[in-house]
């Protein structure tokens, strides 16, 4: 009550929770000492959320603070944070307004205590990566059947023991050539390099090299991050398997090697096949080869059978039968056609014969006979008619002549006096006595001489005396 009144006195405004949290947030985030700070502590309650974000609590003996590292930040962490791990976190303090909690927004995280080494590690890694030493293209496949496996490690450690055990069990054909090296301490790096060089110089060469040591702290593993070691590994003429530390330990040597193995045992398993698998393969190989040949033979038989079964081979007589049919067909056609020319010609000939018969040469003779007969008849009748006509004509003339016969008068007793020349004398004056005359009677002529002549008696004519 009192306090409320006092607050009301001092400030006119009552804040909402949200406003208050915002004010806190603004206050916290504007403090440069909180924005860029390094905090050392131990990780607890570590949770790697499926979203990728990491949530954990940083604590020391007396205090704790919540921390979050977003996936965008933690993706490139070279190690995996774990509970109990001491780390130095770098980041800014911020407020999560919903819960009203402040927390550390971690931007980077590094294990506590080895910070300097870590920086060296990172710097060297970048440098060698830029040189292409870790390039994926440089990675070589491991030999499948190594005769000699070079190992660079401590001669007394568990590493060589694990490797030998594994290879003796899996692939006793491979001989392990141990090139001892110190794997720890400041002198380690040169011995590792030397051990590698010894292996490189071997003749015959080893087929593959395993470089390794057991697990340890970053400092203990450090020789394998030394530039000379990394470079020595990178220039290996044979594939190198790096098996340094435990699975979570990362060294630059791992990057330079062709293959990284989580453990020395895993490295030994990687470099050689298992002999039971090999035996199985070899056993199968002869069966597979045999089977392949059998398949081949069977296939050849099938193909051959298929060919042999083709009708042209199985029934070769068919090609002859087909031709026989063709010949039969042609012969039938020949036989069919053979008499055709004769038939055609017989018909043509018969046709001509029929036409010849119709011509009727004999018939034309008959016609000619009739024409001839007609002519004959015409000639006969025409000539006959002419004769007949002329006969009638003559008869007519004769009839008329009979009627006109001048001698018919004389028959009644008349006579005609004719002179010497036969001329008719019509007057007695022409008849001088003594003149000789002719007298024509109806039945002939007589000669007479005029004796005398009477006088003229009045026109009655002269009297004539005739001396016959």
């Amino acid at each position, binding site marked *: 009550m009192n306090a409320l009144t006092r607050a009301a006195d001092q400030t006119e405004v009552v804040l909402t929770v949200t406003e208050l949290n915002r004010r806190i947030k603004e206050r916290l985030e504007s403090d440069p000492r909180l924005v860029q700070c390094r905090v050392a502590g131990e990780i607890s309650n570590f949770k790697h959320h499926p979203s990728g974000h990491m949530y954990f609590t940083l604590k020391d003996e007396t205090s704790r603070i919540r921390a979050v590292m977003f996936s965008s930040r933690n993706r490139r962490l070279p190690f995996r944070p774990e509970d109990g791990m001491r780390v130095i976190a770098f980041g800014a303090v911020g407020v999560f307004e919903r819960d009203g909690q402040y927390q550390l927004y971690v931007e980077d995280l590094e294990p506590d205590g080895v910070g300097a080494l870590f920086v060296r590690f990172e710097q060297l890694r970048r440098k060698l990566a830029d040189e292409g030493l870790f390039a994926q293209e440089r990675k070589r496949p491991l030999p499948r059947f190594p005769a000699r496996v070079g190992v660079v490690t401590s001669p007394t450690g568990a590493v060589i023991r694990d490797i030998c055990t594994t290879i003796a069990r899996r692939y006793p054909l491979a001989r392990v050539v141990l090139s001892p090296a110190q794997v720890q301490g400041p002198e380690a790096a040169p011995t590792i390099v030397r051990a590698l060089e010894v292996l490189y110089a071997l003749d015959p060469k080893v087929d593959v090299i395993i470089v390794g040591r057991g697990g340890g702290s970053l400092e203990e593993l450090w020789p394998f991050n030394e530039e000379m070691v990394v470079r020595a590994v990178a220039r290996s003429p044979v594939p190198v398997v790096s098996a340094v530390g435990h699975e979570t330990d990362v060294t630059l040597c791992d990057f330079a090697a062709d293959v990284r193995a989580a453990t020395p045992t895993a490295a030994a398993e990687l470099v050689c096949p298992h002999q039971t698998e090999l035996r199985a393969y070899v056993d199968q190989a002869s069966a597979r080869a045999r089977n392949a040949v059998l398949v081949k033979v069977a296939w050849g038989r099938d193909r051959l059978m298929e060919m*042999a079964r083709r009708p042209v081979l199985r029934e070769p007589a068919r090609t*002859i039968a087909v031709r026989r049919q063709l*010949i039969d067909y*042609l012969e039938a056609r020949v036989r069919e056609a053979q008499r055709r*020319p004769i038939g*055609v010609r017989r018909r043509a000939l018969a046709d001509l014969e029929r036409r010849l018969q119709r011509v009727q040469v004999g018939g034309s003779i008959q016609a000619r006979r009739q024409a001839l007969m007609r002519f004959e008849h015409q000639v006969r009748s025409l000539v006959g008619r002419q004769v007949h006509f002329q006969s009638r004509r003559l008869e007519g003339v004769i009839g008329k002549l009979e009627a006109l016969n001048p001698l018919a008068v004389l028959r009644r007793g008349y006579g005609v006096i004719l002179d010497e020349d036969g001329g008719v004398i019509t007057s007695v004056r022409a008849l001088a006595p003594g003149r000789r005359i002719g007298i024509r009677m109806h039945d002939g002529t007589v000669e007479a001489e005029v004796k005398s002549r009477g006088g003229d008696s009045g026109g009655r004519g002269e009297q004539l005396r005739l001396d016959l």
Partner: protein
Amino acid sequence: MEEIREVEANNSGWTFEQAMRRLEEIVRQLESGDLPLDASIRAYEESMRLVKFCREQLDKAEFQLEKLGQELGEDSVTP
């Protein structure tokens, strides 16, 4: 006409196919009815000879096939 003579002369030197082709030609000629009478008789005669020749060729071929079948194991072909 000349052709026909020739054919009869060296019939034996012919192949089956030549004889068949000639036979087909003659059949066509006969069927067309265009051949003169005597030529068609000769054509018929030739065609009969060709038929005979062709058949003989086929007989010979069949005989050879059979012989081959026996020689080269006809039975083993059909499994």
